[in-house]
């Protein structure tokens, strides 16, 4: 893991965007690197990040993606917490009833009155919401304390609520009507092919005919007419400003900030007295899907409290990780230099790694072909798979933005010397981490460029020359291809079941630093 921020080593994703390895995914089926831009994001589950309650998606939609129990502070957007206070309740029979009426949703105090009518002070727990960050409380805006900690907090109804509701209703019915019209149109355009045409044809009975004969009305639903709403009218008459706005000094503490207004979008209050606790927005768990082969790359466990994954194809678990260690000399333009990088094999299989300065020609052709093919596959996939067709609109749009092959050549401004030979990086073995002695491999003659080796890690010395034209304080970027053998345990074809070894290429960019002064 590199602790340098920003991380100087970047991998080119198959879509051409540069990313550090910890932001990349690896599709084992393709097998290719994928980044957040070239995968399909799907909502796995909704949950509240405060109470960690899982909420089904239909319920989440019904509740407008808000948690039913948790509130955010309208003042500082922190989470509110319920605080309990004990209120002394004097239990005289008639007085208790008064108290009950005052406190609104009281609850238990009114029902227990077998006590003596004498004024025995009893306590009762009342709850209010308080912000631990800015000490805002529900008492500040006059929301009465509640007898129950959750569930009974009133929703603040804003002035336009009725209008909102009627508009919502109207547009829902408009959508419904359009849908019906479309179906009607389709039905009329292409007469529905009956599954068993012979049966009804023989008897000459159709469903609608039978229904009419036995006196039922037509099966088709009566057309729903959208309820009429009164359109909003623009008016030129604006109320005059109140006169005291010019005379009274402005108290900025009574005016809400932009963030406070936007966090309460329904009425966007201008005075702090109108801030009400806001229901907390839900969070989602996301699953990521490769767009090319439609396999899941990331699938989290369903339960909100779990941070584990059911499927996790992070690139750092499959692709050798490259970390920049140091440059041997100060960076000077046109001067030969060497960089030491550390390569780690994260897989359970030995890897053969080559460092190349360019992609072999046939491979290059292959990748462009593959890319074109991939585009085609995806077009088909979108139209063929029913699941994706349902979400077709969004997907096709995403596709069209994606498949531009980004050229990243111009980023590099160094000449790199490819390593003369390939080398083997042994598998990951957690127990070897604790071995003190250097293993037997060191007896074999190591290639010259290997500086150090232990277990699945190796330090390499790569020679490079920054371009002679680069000026002082220009960023030096190294670029090379890393070819590595990857043992794929998933079978791409049905007939072959044993793991296959593939030679994969990754393009890497290392920001080595800036050219130094002479």
């Amino acid at each position, binding site marked *: 893991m590199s602790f340098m921020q920003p991380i100087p080593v970047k991998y080119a994703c198959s879509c051409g965007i540069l990313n550090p390895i910890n932001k990349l995914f690896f599709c084992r089926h393709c097998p290719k690197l994928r980044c957040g831009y070239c995968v399909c994001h799907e909502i796995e589950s909704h949950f509240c990040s405060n109470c960690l309650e899982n909420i089904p998606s239909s319920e989440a939609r019904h509740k407008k993606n808000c948690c039913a129990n948790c509130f955010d502070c309208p003042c500082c957007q922190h989470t509110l917490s319920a605080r309990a206070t004990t209120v002394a309740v004097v239990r005289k029979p008639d007085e208790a009833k008064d108290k009950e009426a005052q406190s609104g949703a009281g609850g238990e105090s009114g029902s227990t009155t077998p006590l003596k009518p004498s004024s025995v002070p009893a306590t009762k727990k009342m709850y209010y919401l308080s912000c631990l960050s*800015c000490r805002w409380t529900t*008492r500040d805006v006059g929301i009465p304390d509640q007898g129950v900690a959750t569930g009974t907090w009133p929703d603040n109804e804003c002035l336009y609520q009725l209008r909102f509701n009627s508009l919502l209703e109207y547009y829902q019915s408009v959508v419904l009507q359009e849908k019906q019209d479309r179906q009607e149109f389709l039905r009329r355009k292409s007469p529905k092919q009956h599954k068993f045409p012979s049966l009804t044809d023989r008897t000459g009975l159709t469903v609608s005919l039978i229904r009419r004969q036995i006196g039922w009305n037509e099966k088709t639903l009566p057309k729903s007419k959208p309820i009429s709403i009164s359109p909003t009218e623009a008016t030129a008459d604006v109320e005059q400003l109140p006169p005291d706005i010019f005379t009274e000094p402005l108290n900025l*503490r009574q005016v809400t900030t932009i963030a406070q207004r936007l966090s309460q979008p329904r009425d966007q209050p201008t005075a702090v007295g109108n801030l009400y606790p806001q229901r907390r927005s839900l969070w989602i768990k996301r699953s990521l899907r490769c767009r090319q082969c439609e396999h899941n790359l990331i699938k989290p466990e369903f339960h909100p409290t779990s941070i584990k994954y059911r499927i996790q194809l992070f690139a750092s678990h499959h692709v050798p990780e490259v970390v920049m260690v140091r440059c041997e000399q100060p960076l000077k333009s046109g001067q030969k230099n060497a960089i030491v990088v550390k390569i780690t094999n994260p897989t359970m299989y030995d890897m053969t790694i080559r460092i190349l300065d360019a992609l072999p020609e046939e491979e290059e052709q292959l990748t462009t072909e593959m890319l074109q093919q991939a585009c085609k596959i995806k077009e088909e996939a979108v139209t063929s798979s029913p699941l994706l067709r349902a979400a077709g609109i969004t997907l096709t749009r995403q596709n069209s933005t994606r498949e531009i092959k980004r050229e990243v050549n111009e980023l590099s401004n160094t000449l790199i010397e490819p390593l003369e030979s390939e080398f083997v990086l042994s598998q990951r073995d957690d127990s070897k981490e604790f071995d003190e002695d250097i293993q037997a491999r060191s007896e074999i003659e190591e290639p010259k460029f290997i500086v150090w080796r232990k277990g699945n890690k190796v330090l390499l010395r790569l020679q490079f020359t920054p371009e002679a034209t680069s000026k002082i304080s220009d960023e030096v970027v190294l670029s090379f291809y890393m070819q590595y053998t990857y043992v794929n345990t998933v079978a791409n074809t049905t007939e072959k079941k044993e793991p296959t070894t593939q030679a994969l290429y990754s393009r890497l960019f290392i920001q080595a630093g800036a050219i130094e002064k002479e």
Partner: protein
Amino acid sequence: MPTENSIKIMPKAVVCEETNLRGDIIFSSGCVVHPSATIVAEAGPIIIGENCIIEEYATIAHRLIEGANWDSSNILSIGTHNVFEVGCTVEATKIGDKNVFESKSYVGPGVTVTSGCVVGAGIQMRTAQVMPENTIVYGKDALQREAIDKQGSQTLQIDFLRKVLPNYHHLRKPNYDPKKPRSVV
């Protein structure tokens, strides 16, 4: 600054021995001072009101302005029911009642803290100003707002500390009783 410290502790105040006290300081009854709190009365005496809590690593300082000398009439008076949370530094000129100085906050010289104010965690108040009553300063942008009611008193916390602190720390003995004319306890 006088060469000798004069520290008066009223009865029922709990002042730990490992505190760092310098100058002329009066603790009213009911105060709780945790170990390794620092109170420096350089410019003049400090009078701390009833039921204040001064937590660990809190610093209350009455600093000398350059060129000035110890002046026994230049009193830093701190009101009642104030809470100085862990690691705060308070050099205010005057402090009222029921204020809370949250952890790691800093209140510089020249600031007058009235009553019911809260200086949020990590907030730095450096300009000379008068904080109006019930001001709450919070967040990383040090936004201010006005609370409707004063902060609740910490009676439960004080009672608990008064019970627990003597079990684990050596205390300074109360040495001054206002009821008795001769200050011998």
